[in-house]
């Protein structure tokens, strides 16, 4: 291990970073932008489904039934329909996602104890939202029906029977069921994957393009000294990016951090080394700045976004794709972060992911050193 040379390279690389303030600012702007963009835009919660109501009955009973929907936070009133055509039009235009059609004889049927046929039309083009909206609607209707039955029983002077099942749900880890709490920790992983690779993607390729590498490979510098020396300053920048992301998670998105902060840091440091090594490997393999940046985006951003389990649940994927996700390092980091953030788990359960991250970091660094040739052709 020769520290003199590693130090010389690290120092030189630090000077490049410091002299290029614009690029340095970009390396902080990208994480902030991604965090804000995905943190705010990517909500999987279905709230306030716009509902258009065609109430043909207009009685206290029908109004009460409708308010069961519009009074909840799951639906919002998207206007009143005078005809069935109005409902169709509102759904076509997208001003409403669901239409509720109450029949003209609603009150009479309810009072006579008969089942009142109520129609619910849902725009199913977004299947996920439609399924959730349907669930909400069924719940609203069932709640109303239950109350009517209880009232009837009570009026008849009979003691209301106990419901046969009393389901008591307790939500763990994400009590508010806010998807943001799940997205933000995963988002940190995605941001670190991308920024890690981008930080180093230029480092070697730029020297080949500027011709300075030709000088450097004619010196006795060793390959690992070059790779480690170049990594060092970007590691520091990457750590700052990481702190920034974690701070934004707490201060901007109010995501609870339940696990140990040292564990979070240790895991992130290991992953950061891997991500930086990935960028370095790409830079070494391409020897071309533009190609390096494009490749880095391709091999890090897309898989991290789609195949890491960041917001698309891996168990929902086809089996073949599930297998592919196993070679996406971001996947293990997403798991690690989610578990540390939400479940507060420790290494006793997370060690397999941690080990894989260490393997990933070691492997890319080794590959980078091996791939680096002190030769022109």
């Amino acid at each position: 291990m020769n520290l003199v040379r590693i130090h010389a390279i690290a120092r030189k690389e630090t000077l490049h970073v410091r002299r290029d303030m614009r690029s340095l600012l970009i390396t902080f702007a990208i994480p902030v932008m991604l965090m804000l963009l995905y943190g705010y835009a990517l909500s999987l919660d279905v709230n306030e489904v716009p509902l258009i109501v065609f109430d043909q009955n207009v009685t206290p009973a029908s109004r009460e039934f409708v308010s069961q929907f519009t009074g909840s936070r799951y639906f919002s009133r998207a206007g009143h329909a005078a005809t069935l055509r109005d409902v169709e039009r509102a759904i076509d235009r997208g001003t409403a996602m669901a239409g509720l059609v109450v029949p003209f004889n609603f009150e009479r049927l309810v009072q006579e104890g008969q089942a009142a046929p109520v129609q619910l039309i849902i725009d199913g083009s977004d299947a996920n939202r439609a399924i959730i909206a349907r669930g909400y609607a069924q719940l609203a209707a069932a709640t109303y029906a239950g109350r009517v039955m209880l009232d009837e029983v009570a009026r008849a002077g009979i003691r209301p029977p106990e419901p046969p099942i009393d389901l008591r749900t307790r939500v763990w880890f994400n009590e508010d069921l806010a998807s943001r709490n799940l997205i933000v920790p995963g988002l940190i992983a995605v941001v670190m994957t991308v920024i890690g690779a981008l930080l180093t993607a230029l480092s070697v390729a730029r020297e080949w393009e500027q011709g300075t590498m030709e000088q450097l490979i004619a010196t006795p510098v060793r390959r690992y000294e070059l790779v480690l020396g170049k990594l060092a300053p970007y590691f520091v920048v990457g750590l700052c990016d990481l702190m920034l992301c974690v701070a934004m998670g707490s201060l901007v998105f109010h995501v609870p951090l339940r696990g140990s902060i040292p564990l979070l840091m240790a895991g992130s440091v290991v992953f950061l080394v891997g991500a930086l090594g990935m960028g370095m490997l790409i830079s070494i393999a391409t020897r071309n700045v533009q190609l390096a940046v494009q490749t880095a985006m391709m091999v890090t951003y897309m898989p991290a976004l789609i195949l890491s389990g960041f917001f698309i649940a891996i168990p929902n994927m086809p089996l073949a794709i599930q297998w592919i996700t196993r070679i996406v390092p971001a996947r293990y980091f997403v798991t690690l972060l989610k578990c540390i953030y939400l479940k507060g788990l420790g290494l006793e359960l997370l060690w397999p992911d941690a080990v894989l991250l260490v393997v990933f970091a070691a492997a890319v660094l080794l590959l980078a050193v091996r791939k680096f040739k002190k030769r022109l052709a």
Partner: protein
Amino acid sequence: MANEVEIVGLERRFGSFVAVNGISLEVKQGEVFGFIGPNGAGKSTTIRMLCGILPPTAGSGSVAGFDIRTQAERIKQHIGYMSQKFSLYDDLTVEENLTFFSGIYRIPSAVRKARMDWAVAMAGLEAHRSALTRTLAGGWKQRLALGCAVLHEPRIVFLDEPTAGVDPLSRRRFWDLIYDLAGRGVTVFVTTHYMDEAEYCDRIGLVYRGELIALGSPNELKTGVMREAVLEVACARPQDALEVAERCTSVREAALFGAGLHAVAADASRATAELRAALDAAGCTVSRIEPITPSLEDVFVSLIEAHDRAAADKEAAA
């Protein structure tokens, strides 16, 4: 004297293109060896193979006693290399560039400061130590690059077109530095396409289309290689005189040179008589015709043309 550079049948192909075609040569310790040839002749490719950054496709060689095929990394400890393109860090200062290379070459901290001061003084950059390299003029950049390349006191330095695009005064100064190095026993292997610089070398090799077509001291080449004589013709209206001279049967070739002509001929006295008669008849009054020692440029032009003729003949025969 030991040979610091020795190559035998060195060859480098890029696909079907042969950039360096079977070059063999030796460079002695302390020698200033000039590698001369037009752009694209294979000078840089050869130098890169010698520095251990480009593997040869055939042939063998050694630099500083180490094999260029198998001991490239050992070679790199004993050489300084200045590549053709300016290759220091533009966004670093003079001082920072020197510090970087002194770290890379692991110059002991006890002598580091002295070596850096020496390099700064050599390059004449005392007043610019903290200037960004990008702001330096061409000649200074080249001297700084040389300083970085010899900071660790290598036995051999390889300089690839170190003076390309540099003003004449700076070129002159750069060559003073090269002599200085040679005076300290450093072997200098330098490429150039400036003919005047070829004269400064102890020995030169002429490369053309990947082949070494002449090797020797400037004096040997000027006196020994050319079998034909060069006549210097001073006359009126040299432009018209050139056409007349080219029609003379005893003159193999003629070229404008200064305010007159240079004519190459196998038989000097016959050509002198024919030229004088023809030129006077054409109204280009001749004031003087005399045989001269050919310049290196004459030698190279004649060698290259001979090489091209031979190649054309071979092609025609095949």
